[in-house]
């Protein structure tokens, strides 16, 4: 049951007197990046575990090991795809909504005025796919507004917008 957020059955609440802003998703390249990450990890794991099994117990054991790794990789594909699809963010007039998670569904509403700082990070893999992660920090450690897999331009735009709105609507502690 999808309560709020997500692609299908998505509910985002309109602000009174304004059109409901549409929820946005991370870049499609995020899913491509995650595919490569899973495939790479699976290849390394299959090679390593397969070789070890072949040396220890012969070819049939190696074949079984590789098959297990491949099945695990397929399961990971399915799980990660759903996870990537479930991630959405909505820029409303006064707050940012981030919805994520499949098994445990999480939805955060973070007012711009509560923002302490914005983090834009891009690891080596993310850089190879020209992606970046934006994280909004507040004074509460639990507020959790992280958006991975944004295209660089979108990440920069979001960062600037958040910074500007944060300053305009800032509220003290």
């Amino acid at each position: 049951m999808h309560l709020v957020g997500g692609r299908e059955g998505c509910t985002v609440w309109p602000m009174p007197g304004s059109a409901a802003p549409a929820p946005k998703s991370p870049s499609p390249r995020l899913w491509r990046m995650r595919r490569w990450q899973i495939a790479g990890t699976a290849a390394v794991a299959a090679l390593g575990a397969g070789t070890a099994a072949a040396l220890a117990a012969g070819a049939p054991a190696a074949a079984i090991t590789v098959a297990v790794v491949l099945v695990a990789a397929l399961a990971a594909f399915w799980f990660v795809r759903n996870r990537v699809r479930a991630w959405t963010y909505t820029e409303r007039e006064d707050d940012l909504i981030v919805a994520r998670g499949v098994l445990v569904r999480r939805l955060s509403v973070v007012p711009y005025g509560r923002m302490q700082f914005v983090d834009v990070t891009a690891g080596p893999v993310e850089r190879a796919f020209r992606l970046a992660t934006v994280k909004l920090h507040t004074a509460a450690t639990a507020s959790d507004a992280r958006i991975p897999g944004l295209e660089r331009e979108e990440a920069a735009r979001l960062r600037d917008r958040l910074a500007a709105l944060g300053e305009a609507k800032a509220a003290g502690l």
Partner: protein
Amino acid sequence: MTGQPGGWHRLHPLSPLVRSGRAAVGVLAIVGISASGQFGHDGSHLLDWALAAAVVIGAVVNWLVTRWKLDGATLRIETGLLRRDSRQLPVARIQAVDVVRPFLARALGLAELRVRLAGSSHADGRLAYLPEQAALDLRARLLAAHHGLDPATPEPGEQILASVPTGRLVGSVLASGASLLIALLVAELVVILVAPAVLAASGSTFLIFLLTLVPMVWRRLATEYGFTLAQSPDGIRIRRGLLGTVAETIPLRRVQAVRMVEPVLWRPLGWCRLEIDVAGSPGRDHADGSGRLRKTLLPVGHREPAWRLMLLVMAADPPPLVRPPGQARRKAPLSYHFLASGHDAATAMGVTGRLRKVTTWVPLEKVQSVRMVTGPVQRILSLATVHVDAAGRRVRAEFRDRSGEEAAQLVEDLAALCRVARRRATGTAIPAGAVPPPSIPPAPAIHAQSGLPLAGPATQPGQRR
């Protein structure tokens, strides 16, 4: 102290002695051990004395290079010989001001002034040590400036709200220790029944546990002894301590959340503990109290007066509480009996806990984010939990296990209410010194069994007084 009023000041000349007091004792112990010839060799006394001298010289140099001044609306502290640390503490950002007197300082008539800002404890401004009277004067000046008054305004009078008799404090500490002991005895019994052979080994762990319990009990008694809570126009004042004393002053508008904790062994006695959250992590300040102590508003008290204190600190009426739907019993069988939550236009309150009941109350104008979390079991039962986060680590009111549609509606409502509350707070910033005079509102109706406040006749629903 040197310099003109308004100019740069030094700390008290005896500060190096007090600051290096602990280190000096340690060094003296080392010197004593090696001097007693246990580690029979000579010629190394030089090293010991060099060590002692280094500690003393370090403390003296630190004193020499440290200076402070109150510059209009900013407290400036400069310290450091090689790495110069110049710190500006804007008076408007003060979260709390503490006057801390460790035993040695107290014996010499000195006190440390600690200015708490939001953020980690590294952000705190610490002036160790000032003469006692100078520390109190500076505190008064800082708080007056914080409230936008002339810094020369004398410290306003106070009204004592609560104090903790020593007998009750001892009883509460024993009850806490007793619950630990009972848990351990149960574990011990299980061990005896399952594996008698391990008995000897577990017996010794029991002894070790007892030995660690004693300093814990002593520390709580020593730090919470003579606990006094007072209210004055510049905020809430807390005083406590047996050998070393601490006096905290927290401006009322800095309160992020208030929490009432009722441990299982305290409940038959009708006791509870109150905690108060101010922005900034408590951090580790050894010697004068752990993080938990730094949050204590009342270490132990009866529930009804404690309720009144909570109302006073929040300056609001409690919101009507609602219990979660019946299917929540299947998800949270051990805590369902306590679960309740509710909100009005100004505050949100959540009750959680299995054995000990925890009631958290958060003013909406301080809310940092609103979150909804739906776990797998909750989704099957169509439940969801809504968190209302305030500044700090795990400072939140939980609307646990509400029905799905209600939770979605709650997120929307709370986000909107928080926005309004925030605008009201920033738009009509509390004018200088216009904190309402001390007044104790009547005790709320409390449900006899659940201990929950009833909706009751809210005088001004939705308005923080």
